[in-house]
């Protein structure tokens, strides 16, 4: 459908840049959850729109890869369409909307509902990689806090939530402890998705373009959501099933249907929703 661009290198980035990013990724995999600074490049898409994820994808993609891109869990959201078209154009790779067919999945704000398998790579777009940033705005300070595992402030923040609201009032970008060492921002995925990161067979790579940071969770790594013994971590649940496929175990988006405020709850993962409907029909 798209003609492959010839004016630019395969997958847009030059090979030296890809090598630089891969070196960063190797270090990130070696020290799970640690943020690795990298020489993020200016991309032809705006900062904040997935430049980190795009650079990671460009660095690891090969001609035989099959790429899936989702935003809010959906393959058909405008930015997912735009990024998928970017790689179809610059790398000429095959693309898919089927989670199980993809070798690389670039995502913004969701982890697919369909379980990932060994050999797949999930690439997250990250806006603010520093989980401590809204507690301590200075990079020089947060770097020290990570080095010393000084994470007490994060627990204090969660405790203050409980004191004020009776529960932890963080519903997305919920902080996790990776491999028992580094507190990590899982990117703004709903906390619903946090348990999927734990001991996942797929390689999880994170790219923050504007902030110029890479980090990773290797396959089968412990990823624990921070909580308290008397206030254990819990995920969201819905009273009604998906209005399209009837699923009761997926993350639901709320769609306002009319001016009277009628609501429809539907799967945010469009591929998962399709599979459930096909299963029901078949």
């Amino acid at each position, binding site marked *: 459908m798209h003609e492959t661009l010839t004016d630019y290198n395969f997958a847009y980035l030059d090979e030296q840049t890809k090598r630089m990013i891969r070196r960063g990724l190797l270090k990130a995999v070696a020290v799970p959850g640690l943020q690795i*600074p990298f020489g993020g490049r200016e991309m032809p898409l705006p900062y*904040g729109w997935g430049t980190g994820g795009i650079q990671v994808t460009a660095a690891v993609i090969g001609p035989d890869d099959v790429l899936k891109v989702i935003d809010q869990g959906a393959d058909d959201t405008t930015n997912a369409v735009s990024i998928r078209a970017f790689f179809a154009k610059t790398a000429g790779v095959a693309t898919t909307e089927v989670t199980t067919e993809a070798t690389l999945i670039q995502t913004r704000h969701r982890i697919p509902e369909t379980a990932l398998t060994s050999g797949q790579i999930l690439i997250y777009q990250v806006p603010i990689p520093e989980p401590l940033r809204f507690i301590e705005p200075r990079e020089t300070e947060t770097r020290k806090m990570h080095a010393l595992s000084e994470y007490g402030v994060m627990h204090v923040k969660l405790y203050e939530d409980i004191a004020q609201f009776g529960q932890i009032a963080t519903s997305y970008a919920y902080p996790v402890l990776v491999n028992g060492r580094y507190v990590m921002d899982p990117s703004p995925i709903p906390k619903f998705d946090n348990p999927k990161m734990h001991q996942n067979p797929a390689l999880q790579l994170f790219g923050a373009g504007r902030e110029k940071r890479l980090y990773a969770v290797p396959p089968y790594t412990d990823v624990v959501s921070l909580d308290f013994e008397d206030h254990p971590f819990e995920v969201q649940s819905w009273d009604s099933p998906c209005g399209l496929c009837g699923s009761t175990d997926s993350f639901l*988006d709320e769609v306002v249907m009319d001016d009277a405020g009628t609501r429809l709850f539907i799967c945010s993962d469009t591929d998962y929703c399709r599979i459930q409907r096909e299963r029901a029909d078949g």
Partner: protein
Amino acid sequence: MYVAVKGGEKAIAEAHALLAELRRGDPDVAELSLDQIQNQLSLAVDRVMNEGSLFDTELAALAIKQAQGDLIEAIFLLRAYRTTLPRHGVSTPIETTDMRVLRRISATFKDVPGGQILGPTYDYTHRLLDFALAVEAMDETDWDHDAHHHDDALEDQDTETEEASPTLSRVLSLLEREGLVEQPPSAVSTPSVDLTREPLDFPAARETRLQALARGDEGYLLSLAYSTQRGYGRTHPFAGEIRSGVVMLHCPVEELGYALPLGEFLVTECDMINQFQGGGDLEPTFTRGYGLQVGLSERKAMSMALVDRALRADELDEERLSPAQDEEFVLAHCDNVEAWGFVSHLKLPHYVDFQSELALIRALRQAAETPDA
């Protein structure tokens, strides 16, 4: 109904078609040429080259045309192109003392060797709309063409040279000789960080800070500079020297064993003299802030010099109390492509995060209504 919520490939293609139509405007009106932009909107071209970190008037003009005159969008276009270019080498530092001067003023001395040279400046224009310019074909006005355009300035170097003395000594060197102002830093021994290739690291060296400021947003730096004048990190500045003119760029070639002249280009430099330090055993000495931009970009060069000086607070043992003195605050937010990217990303769908917050706030309200639950 559900499909209407989601966008798609077709919607994007239609949006691009509409954009192309809007960009072109009324087809009965003649299309802008890059030549016209380069010549008649040269200050916009300069800004785009500075903040786009690429000296190429033609590409900058193209970016401005493509962006419908939205300069931040044009800067983004130029940066996204620049990032694909290979780095062939590192030039030797330009010698601005050898500048063939188009404009040079000092606010610290009534007269200086070589004189005050106003050059092409808006400074003393009365800001009255010139309705004569509204009429087309104004080629025969009494405006001095040579002084007005880069290309002309570059082409007419020979005549410039005859008119002005080839080089003018620097105003601050007069004070340096008496030891009244700090010496400029000597050549940097280690190669500077290239911020387009390496991430910004804190604390940053002064040359790294200057690099970030050089491609920083003009409006942001202007406001920060202004804030120092209003007491938020006061530095008592004087415009020691502001000069614009043509300098030669050299690049060392290993095989040749010397630096090869690549060509000349127009730059604007600002040397600010600031409050003195000293006391105790130290003799009181004026300090300085520095700004440099390509083209005629005086507002930016002055703002840069003021912010550079404010950011030297630690080095000069000053208390850091104001935003302009705060390196992480200033440098992490001065890039308008980064800033606009992150602000604009709020336009992207956030259904999932918002749904999470909705579910949370409903749960919190429910818990508040039934406190025993």
